[in-house]
């Protein structure tokens, strides 16, 4: 259900169940629907300066200071930054699962999911991102990504965010499928410009289990909320 916001200054607007942006007027508070159209990450010598990106902190490291993991496959001058490129769907669908292909890996172990972002090289092997109904690392059912906005602030959950790399799966959501926020995991936060639909959302997710146990992924998505892609 969509409720249009008005420009009334009295502040007595009824609470909105769904928030939208774009052609139908400014965004109101509530659940976001549609497509978070991802803006491709842009690099310079300092790292990713705009758009969407990924970084990884080593175990015991600081989210601001590192030490970060160097990805030699990054085109950035600072290879601790990995730019992300929008996938075939254009980005992240809110309120809908975006599962990987039936076989999530190529013969060489590269991740194949390409709807949200394009498979991206990391340590010479592409990682791919999907938001399936069942988290492949934990085997637990997970809800689709849901974001909401209150007065321009964005929050929500990205529990289903799953990375496939080198024949292995890593849940990089927040909260985790069991609802916890282990270690450096933090729930998504961001902002939404109600006039333009420009949106940013960022979260951190510590890897639990597997060869990168204890490493923390820093995810940053920038783009625009496209309501025309509403499911």
């Amino acid at each position, binding site marked *: 259900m969509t409720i249009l916001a008005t420009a009334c200054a009295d502040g007595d607007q009824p609470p909105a169940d769904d928030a939208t942006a774009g052609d139908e007027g400014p965004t109101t508070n509530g659940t976001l629907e549609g497509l978070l159209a991802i803006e491709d990450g842009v690099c310079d010598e300092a790292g990713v300066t705009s758009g969407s990106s990924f970084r990884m902190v*080593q*175990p015991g490291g600081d989210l601001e200071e590192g030490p970060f*993991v*160097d*990805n*030699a*496959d990054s085109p950035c001058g600072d*290879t601790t930054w990995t730019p992300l490129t929008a996938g075939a769907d254009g980005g992240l669908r809110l309120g809908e699962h975006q599962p990987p292909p039936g076989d999530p890996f190529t013969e*060489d*172990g590269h991740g194949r999911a390409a709807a949200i972002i394009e498979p991206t090289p990391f*340590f*010479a*092997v592409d990682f791919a991102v999907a938001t399936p109904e069942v988290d492949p690392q934990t085997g637990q059912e997970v809800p689709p990504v849901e974001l909401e906005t209150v007065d321009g602030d964005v929050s929500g959950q990205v529990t289903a965010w799953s990375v496939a790399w*080198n*024949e*292995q799966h890593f849940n990089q959501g927040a909260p985790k499928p069991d609802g916890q926020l282990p270690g450096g995991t933090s729930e998504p936060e961001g902002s939404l410009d109600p006039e333009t639909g420009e949106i940013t959302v960022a979260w951190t997710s510590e890897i639990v*289990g*597997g*060869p*990168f*146990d*204890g*490493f923390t992924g820093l995810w940053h998505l920038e783009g625009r909320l496209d309501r025309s892609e509403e499911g």
Partner: protein
Amino acid sequence: MRSVALWLAAAVGLGLAAAPAAFGMFERAPAGGEMLDDFRPFMRTEVLDDFADHLQRADAAATEADTRLVEVASTHLDVETRPTAVDHPAIQDLTDRWPAASDELGEMLGTIVANEERFHAVDALPPFALFPWFFVAPGLLATGLAAHGLRAMRRDPGVPRGADAAGHRPGTRPARIGLAVLGVGLIAAPAVFGMFERAPAGEAMLDDFREVMTQQTVSSAQQAFLLLAGAEGALRTETLPVLRGADVDTAQELPAITDFVDQWQVMAADMSPMVGAMSDNLERYEGLLALPPFGWFPWFFVGGGLALLASALAAPARVRTRAAANHPPEPQESPDDADPADHISAEASGAAGDRDDPGHGVR
């Protein structure tokens, strides 16, 4: 007093049934089974040989980066492009830190290789998840049989049910036979499952892995992986392209580095799941260490079996009622109509056990 044998059998049964809960086996045994499942893909000679090859490949690349790379770059590249090929922190890390990391990984791999056969011996045992029930089931059965026998010895006085012409009644016979069979089964089980060889092998394997299955080792393996991944990336994206751009035949001039870069994906595909298996099983391993030593397990069964067998042999075979001893028994009624009769020892006098006839006693 001869009921003591059956009380012993009951105690042994209760002990067996309670042991899994006492030792946390219901959680630790299945977890141990999961650990075996996680490591099984790696505990094969061909896989371990591949790991050894990967280590040697990385060693050779590090040595070549330390001894040949600068020379080749100096020969073929001008002063301006030379640093791109050689002056990368990740390459410096490879030459500086890899030897120590390789030694550590080599020791770990050596431990794993040395325990390959022991792993398969343990893996050949029945599923770990069933182990608690190998105690609970016979324990409850033994307790039930003992209780049946004790109950038969304490029936009310009166006309003995099922007594023969001499006044004997085989009340404990089924219990004795059951306990004897169960005892023999428990004694034989370790031999049937090869536990006398496999359990000590499992104990030795767990002991050997004390230095391997630690958070410190996992962290070292992670850092080693990052070290190699960083170096590979620098060599692949900077060193080799620059040299090849100068028409250097890198396969000829730097064969070890070229081979390392060419094989990196295979190395990463092999190494990272192994590190993952170690990381995922640290708690399960600690759980297995918290159990009694594996080598004791066959003797738990043997000891329990011997106790049950001894109880079965020591329990009263037949008991002659005093009434039957002093008076001929009444004509047999239908078993359904006969009153329950207590066991009375002709020798016992005034022994406790018969509430209604204090003159009867139970031996």
